[in-house]
């Protein structure tokens, strides 16, 4: 199940969207999230859906792959749809069976909210699928740059993020090893009642924490020896490159806003 889950995963590829500057992509997604709320009628939502599908198409991610990977999200989507369907009591009565009564406004709201939810999930997934975590970190670091003035430790936050990302696979491996070592000693993880299972996690977590602290200490030493003295006077190996496509994407977004505003009821 974990393999199929695409939330927060990065799939390397070569498309217009893949090649975009991470700063542009992050800005684009954040602005898009705000713009989604401009739509308030069938036209608006149809345009949003069309626009999202266009972006997915440009990113060369197969729609089937996206839908398949987001299955857990769809359960939530269907749940919200029915919530609106059953509990909104406005407009004409369309259908009634026993205690179930469905109104026109309920159906409308259900569909609209679902579309809104869908385009948001699709758009953010496209961002994480086409941008490597390290590029996202770089993008965030630059975009948050202005906040250095109010003493926000932007560089440190970005470094923390990239080191955590770097150590996820290492710690996963380690967890696997500890799990096997504990199982070899007869510890039974993954069976029995909930309370027992929670208890069984403790002998897994403690060695993991101990080793994580050890690693952190070693890493700090290695960084210091390699001349790390905080963000001051540092140059960057990864350069971000703002190109025409990045400006165009934001122009396109402005266009979308105008169109949505025009069709707004």
């Amino acid at each position: 199940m974990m393999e199929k889950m695409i939330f927060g995963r990065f799939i390397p590829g070569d498309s217009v969207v893949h090649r975009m500057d991470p700063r542009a992509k992050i800005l684009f997604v954040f602005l898009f999230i705000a713009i989604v709320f401009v739509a308030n009628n069938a036209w608006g939502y149809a345009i949003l859906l069309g626009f999202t599908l266009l972006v997915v198409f440009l990113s060369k991610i197969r729609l089937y792959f996206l839908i398949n990977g987001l299955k857990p999200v769809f359960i939530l989507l269907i749940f919200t749809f029915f919530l609106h369907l059953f509990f909104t009591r406005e407009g004409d009565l369309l259908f009634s069976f026993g205690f179930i009564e469905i109104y026109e406004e309920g159906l409308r709201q259900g569909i609209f909210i679902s579309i809104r939810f869908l385009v948001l999930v699709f758009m953010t997934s496209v961002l994480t699928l086409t941008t490597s975590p390290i590029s996202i970190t770089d993008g965030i670091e630059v975009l948050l740059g202005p906040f250095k003035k109010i003493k926000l430790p932007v560089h440190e936050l970005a470094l923390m993020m990239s080191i955590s990302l770097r150590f996820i696979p290492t710690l996963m491996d380690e967890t696997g090893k500890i799990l096997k070592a504990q199982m070899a000693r007869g510890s039974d993880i993954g069976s029995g009642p909930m309370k027992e299972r929670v208890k069984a996690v403790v002998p897994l977590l403690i060695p993991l924490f101990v080793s994580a602290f050890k690693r952190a200490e070693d890493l700090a030493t290695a960084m210091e020896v390699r001349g790390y003295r905080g963000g001051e006077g540092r140059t960057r190996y990864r350069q971000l490159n703002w190109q025409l496509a990045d400006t165009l994407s934001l122009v396109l977004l402005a266009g979308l806003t105008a169109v949505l505003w025009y069709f707004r009821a």
Partner: protein
Amino acid sequence: MNTEILSFENVTFTYNTEDETMRPAVENVTFSIESGEWIALVGHNGSGKSTMAKLMNGLLFPNEGKVKVFGHTMSEETLWDIRSQMGMVFQNPDNQFVGATVQDDVAFALENNGVPHAQMVERVHVALSQVKMEDYKDHEPHHLSGGQKQRVAIAGALAMRPKLLILDEATSMLDPQGRMEVIETIRRLRESTGLTVISITHDLEEAALAERIIVMNRGQKHVEGTPAAVFNEGSELTEMGLDLPFAMRMTHLLQEAGVALQEEHMTEDKLVDELWKYYSRA
């Protein structure tokens, strides 16, 4: 050629100076290393060799005596300047990998020292080709073997064009193949650039490759000399918990068994050479 790179002058260091019963981790140690040398610092666990590594790069300062690197006495003021000219590779391959990919990691020290971008790209490329890892520049650390990670760590040090490379137990967590890769890389580097290398190790096979060995025991310098001279101490080294190289142990055992071998052998090849000559003589 004969400029002094690093020296210890009567260096003593105790971890906790308040506790009177604490034995100094390093006691009255004096030695000096000249440019172009390959020195092995050997000793059993607790012999003080790791503490010496920390004294060399200014993670610790001596209680008594002086540590001089590149002619400057190690102090808070000279520390960063000295560190920028010295590369260091540690024991655990995973815990010194800072970057998300191989090339990011090699660039880390360059970024810290404010090297301009254009120069950085070139230096990263050169350093990676020196350790033969240029094909892996976009790889993530968890897709590399231990030996490959250590080679990347060496490249990270080389990118700064250091005058001195310190290997602090850099091969002790590797499998035999990874160990060979790393030793081979160092040997090649020394041939092509004449880099000064200090390898801190408890493996005498590795130490045998050095030009000079300094043996540490209980915080004190026990003996210093060429590998052949040091290994002559045989039983004393064994008592300190150090294992002689296999070829030497074999030579001793053969001699005890009455095989009249002519000389001491530090490598298996040389021992085999003499053995087949021995039989053709007999």
